[in-house]
């Protein structure tokens, strides 16, 4: 939107990983629109607060609806959009602080609701917008403005957390792999339940991890990220948990639950058929209370 809107005063820093995520989302939405023959206005992106959440203002091309809300609450907002309006495509975008710190309490409930919502976590291991404080995914010993003598708290393993909380579809990606990322987002949206696409999206200003993720032969740095081998059985939860144990970060589709859980849209429908409950008019309900 920024290209058309001179008043919008937010910019990402040069090299910020979030640029790649933005393009990937644009590609995924464009492909979905063509495949499903539906207008872009059927899509809603709910954004958290952080550098990452500003993505909804920077989107180019056909514009979906968006809701740029408050810090940490993208998931429950998305629940409110999708629950009563299952006809809409719903995505959320947010940072590691947004999703894994202040908003972490919402992942479990959302996984259990299992609505068809795709959540994109832009993990830069830092609080970007507030200028570089430690986040749950900041490494131990790293110095930030709130960890002056090195971070004491352990680092969260987000992929393990998603699996443990019952998320049925988990992807791990890199923001620099724009095309595969776009495809992964599209596939996650096609999955009929709740899906998380966790993206390593480095912050060039406060926590530049490009070299660590991809490795640097000249400097002798081993890459932290590694492609998930073809032999990995994506439907096997134990295999997925083994895969994400770390410290290295697998890239690709980690887990796709099959069969055992029904998407909530379907659940709602089933419940209605089972109970055969019809809405009574207010007058009829009042008549039942007549003395």
């Amino acid at each position, binding site marked *: *939107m*920024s290209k058309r*809107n001179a*008043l*919008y*005063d*937010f910019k990402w820093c040069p090299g910020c990983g979030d640029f790649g995520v933005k393009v990937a989302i644009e590609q995924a939405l464009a492909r979905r629109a063509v495949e499903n023959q539906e*207008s*872009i*206005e*059927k899509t*809603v992106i*709910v954004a958290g*607060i952080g550098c990452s959440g*500003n993505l*909804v*203002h920077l989107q180019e091309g056909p*514009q*979906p*609806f*968006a*809701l*740029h*809300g*408050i810090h940490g*609450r993208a998931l*429950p*907002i*998305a*629940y*409110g*959009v*999708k*629950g*009563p*309006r299952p*006809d*809409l495509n719903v995505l959320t975008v947010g940072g590691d602080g947004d999703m894994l710190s202040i908003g972490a*309490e*919402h992942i*479990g*409930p959302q996984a259990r609701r299992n609505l068809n919502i795709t959540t994109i976590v832009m993990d830069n291991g830092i609080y970007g917008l507030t200028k570089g404080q430690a986040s749950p995914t900041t490494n131990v010993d790293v110095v930030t403005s709130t960890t002056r003598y090195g971070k004491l708290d352990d680092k969260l393993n987000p992929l393990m957390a998603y699996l443990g909380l019952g998320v049925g579809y988990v992807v791990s990606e890199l923001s620099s792999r724009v095309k595969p990322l776009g495809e992964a987002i599209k596939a996650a949206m096609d999955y009929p339940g709740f899906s998380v696409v966790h993206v390593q999206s480095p912050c060039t200003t406060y926590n530049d991890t490009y070299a660590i993720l991809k490795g640097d032969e000249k400097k002798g740095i081993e890459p932290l990220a590694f492609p998930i081998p073809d032999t990995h059985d994506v439907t096997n939860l134990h295999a997925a948990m083994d895969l994400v144990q770390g410290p290295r970060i697998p890239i690709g589709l980690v887990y796709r639950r099959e069969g055992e859980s029904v998407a909530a849209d379907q659940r*709602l429908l089933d419940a*209605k058929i089972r*109970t055969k*409950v*019809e*809405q*009574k*008019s*207010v*007058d009829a*309900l*009042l*008549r039942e*209370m*007549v*003395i």
Partner: protein
Amino acid sequence: MSSKNLVVRFAGEGGQGVVGGADLMASAAATGGYHVLTFSTFPSQIKGGPAWGQARVSSEPILTPGDWLDVLVAQNQYAYDTNLPDLREGGIVVYNSEEFEVTGNSRAYGIAADKMAREAGNPLASTIILIGAVAQMAGIDLNAIEAFIVKRWTRGRASDKQIIDGNIAALRMGAEEGKKSGLSVTPLDPPPVHAEPRVMIRGFEAACLGAMAAGLDTFIGYPISPATTMLTFMEQNLVGKDKFVGQASSEIESIASLVGAGFAGRKVMTSTAGPGLSLMGEGLGLAWMAEIPLVVCDVQRGGPATGLPTKTEQSDLYAAINPGHGDMSVPVIAPGNPEEAFWAAGHAMNWAERYQGPVILLSEASIAERAQDIAIPDASKMKQENRVVSDGKVGNRRYAGDSVTPFPVPGGPGAYVANGSEHDEEGDTTHLPNIHVQMTDRRFAKLKVLEDGTFEAERTSASIALLPWGGSKGSALAAWRELIDEGVDLGWYYTMFLNPLPPALLEALQAKRLVLVPELNYLGQLAARLRSMGVNAQAITQYTGLPFKEADLKSAIRERMAAFK
């Protein structure tokens, strides 16, 4: 001689069915054609702790639970000791003689109701035995109560007849005991004759039905006393095509999901109490900023933090109008009784749709839980307002203009960013000073469309006026009527529409020398707000967790009037 009123209190421990006893008494009397009103108070625990339920039965419309008891049914010594001071002169005590003995009180009679019920092979009927005794002592027609028993337990089951017969036998047994006691209170007047059908309704049911009558389709909430009943009512009754009810995992989730649903075009509501309202502060700010219609029903309980979860208070007014940080002024409608709750809930839905923002329906424990007979509300008279939906003519400039503008609904034209950060016309974030001024002015200007609130005004020539709000209306009205009969010159003003106040009401109040505001809180919240608006308002406060007694209020008003020169 006969009496217009009968007030019966069942007192004992939580879990002893004292609240149920009062409910049953009220339902039975209502079936006989009487007006009834119940009130109960109990601690926040499932079993034990002092609890009581009170039923007022009258041949006239009822305003309050009643200051004085005609009959006290005491289940234990503590209940007897603590409730006896509320017994009027000439009142009767019926006590549980299996549990304790009352000596030296010629107006007390012991009944071993549990034992009698057990021996009759109907252990669940002890409350009915007590009701039989009370009805006998108060001169209520037992046939009317029998008719109630038949109606209540005719459920199309094989066991119906056995239960009905057992309960009627219990009623007769109780009446026999009543006779044996030789005690009686002034018999109740015969019931009035009603022209139109009446319903026995609780405040929370009325609020739910009012919201549904105005077109509510989505309800998401988190359990909390005394607001849980609304969530469970909706789960049961808001069903079928395009209806959605969900249990969130916190009030933070409730409000966030309501914002999402309101944004997606639905007509939405949640219910909560003080602690939940506190958690909703930021989300309500988001609804205000992003201009999303939604209704939060706050059923007030007592105190900050966990406070008094099961008691009644009116201490959330500040929090309702300013639930969060920053410049906002959330519209508030506060009903004064179950009947008003029906219309107030519909109004709240309509206000939210009309001005496109959050509205608080401010209820109270004593209204939500009170059962009362009212003429059946005519649901067809409820207006159903719907937000004006964008046809896409202004493109994505959703926030263009200086007041309410058409609302783009996802799936339709006008895709924009609904934004909780300060934003320009398209919803893109901006920090420009002139835009913040423009958008703040826009949001406050929208409140203008809500200045259609009505109000009651009587004796408008008096220079001193009484202005109760919410659930204090009943006691205040009763006190005011008596004062007028006694020749006191006092104006009466009342409105459900607390923010924005009807402009003509504010003007009238500003012209008074003194406005007395009875309210159940320490701070005198409405009075303080009125003072900030140029009204010489004084609060008459009470913060016991119980409603005002009519007599207390009357003497407080007299004192304030005498002290004001």
